[in-house]
């Protein structure tokens, strides 16, 4: 069977798996989610570290870290879009890349299937917040590199927060900051900001992206089996947490602006 040979890199073996260490094996046999969620109640999010302005050659950038999700985002633009036809509104182009070491199983350095679905979700989250009518014929490029991933839902949420911070850092006109939060239904309870193991065990997950300053929802992504009442409850829980995250983002941008002066 022919595999795709990447001439620019030294290709590893076609089939490989991570080694299993003795104590890790013990842990995986008895997953105890309640114990792993130490120091955190079911309605608390993990602490966020957010630093704008880390990549100096980009117009704007941000780095976000929450426990096991680490994403670096850079914004280039608005730049002239050379190849497309005249567009009176600007375009928002989001590209996501997973590094090969970002998850348990090595990801191919070439384009992966999951890249695009995360990019589409983040673009949907940011679309209503940027004043694109101010940039005709232009494109704003947002590049996200996921250094470590803790579940797809976590990546989408953290990615949209990082992207919105980077856009603000770049000084692009926006209606408001976009923040995102994830919730999962485990048993009968709603757990906010679930890790990958918790998402796998959940009946359903929901990602909410909104602009807390304006009270507008920009993106809802739900998957799995949930009743209408559970969806309502998740939306409310996420909404509350999004408002908390908004103050974190605003504080980080303020500190960064002060340090530049």
């Amino acid at each position, binding site marked *: 069977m022919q595999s795709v040979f990447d001439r620019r890199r030294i290709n590893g073996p076609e089939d490989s798996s991570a080694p299993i260490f003795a104590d890790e094996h013990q842990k995986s046999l008895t997953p105890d989610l309640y114990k792993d969620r130490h120091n955190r109640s079911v309605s608390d999010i993990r602490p966020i570290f957010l630093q704008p302005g880390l990549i100096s050659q980009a117009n704007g950038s941000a780095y976000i870290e929450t426990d096991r999700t680490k994403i670096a985002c850079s914004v280039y633009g608005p730049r002239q879009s050379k190849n497309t036809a005249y567009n009176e509104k600007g375009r928002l182009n989001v590209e996501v890349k997973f590094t090969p070491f970002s998850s348990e199983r090595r990801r191919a350095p070439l384009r992966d*299937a999951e890249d*695009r679905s995360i990019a589409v979700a983040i673009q*949907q989250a940011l679309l209503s917040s940027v004043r694109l009518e101010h940039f005709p014929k232009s494109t704003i490029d947002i590049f996200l590199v996921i250094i470590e991933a803790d579940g797809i839902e976590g990546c989408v949420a953290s990615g949209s927060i990082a992207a919105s911070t980077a856009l603000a850092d770049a000084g692009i006109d926006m209606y408001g900051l976009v923040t995102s939060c994830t919730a999962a239904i485990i048993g009968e309870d709603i757990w906010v900001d679930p890790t990958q193991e918790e998402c796998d065990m959940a009946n359903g997950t929901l990602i909410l992206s909104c602009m807390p300053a304006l009270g507008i929802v920009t993106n809802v992504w739900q998957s799995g*089996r*949930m*009743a209408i009442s559970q969806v309502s409850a998740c939306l409310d829980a996420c*909404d509350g947490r999004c408002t908390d995250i908004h103050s974190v983002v605003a504080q980080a941008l303020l500190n960064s602006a002060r340090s530049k002066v």
Partner: protein
Amino acid sequence: MTSASISKAEKSYIQAGLLTSPPRRADGRSLHDFRAIYLETGVAPLSNGSARLSIGRNPLDGSGGTEVLAAVKLEVENIEEQTLDGGRIACNVSCSPSAYPHLSSGALDDLQHDLTTVLHQTLSHPSLHPKNLGIIPRKKSWLLNLDLLVTAEAGNIYDALFLAARAALWDTKVPRTRSVEYKSPKTFLSASGDMDVDQDTRSGFDTRHVAHATDFELPDYWDEGEILEGRERWPVAVTLNLLHTAHFLDATLQEEASCASRLLVVYSHESPTAYTIQSMRMLGSDELSIPHLKKLIKEAEGYTRSMATSLTTKLEDEDFRRNQKAREKFGRRK
């Protein structure tokens, strides 16, 4: 999502028509009316289940409308991990270039990928998993490949895809399998030719012996088999096209282009009282508040319920037409 490009004047004309009271649409429908839906099952004889669905086809010459062909093909695969003992579902949507003449091949690939992701993530979720896809426990199982082909697009593609998928899965028959065990032949090298009592002969009542099936055979012919389990659980989708004060269903291409955002909600109606949301996506760039969103989710439940009941009625009709009536017709010919 790309759609027909229309001028601002036409956009505002369509929006004004939708927002007046009574609302006016180009073909005279009300806000919550669907175009005529044509459905036929069993269109691909080599597949295990198939359906062809079109929304809004011109009744005189059969042209126009959104048309989707769905087919299910079952393959045997070895179970590698201890994930699900009973098989796996893989969905794939391909868009024919004739349906999207204005898209480049790169954009067409992206569209295919997006449609596939929505369908695959919704339909392969463990909560919808049918229970009769296993063959030999922990060794072999069925891989259900659901392939959808969009041959024409005139708006409302998500609803058409989910309806066609449900119809094809309803029509699917899983071939029955019988496990086969291999026994080594009795050796003739028993020492001194003594009778080996009770060594190779086992009583049928001996339940201590655990059967280790290593292979299987198919007692059915290829178009027989048992129905795929969990038919009522397969979900139905509705796309609510959002305007500031109202929402409408089943948009044509021009209406989709004049509407800034859409909400896709997928419900599974297992029984009249038990319904759950299987998937939800927002597409577009308009504003939506949380109370408004909750209201839309509730209304979507009513729409999908009526879609699911009429689809089930039609599918049962189709079953009857192909099986019962065909048998009667052949019976009469003798």
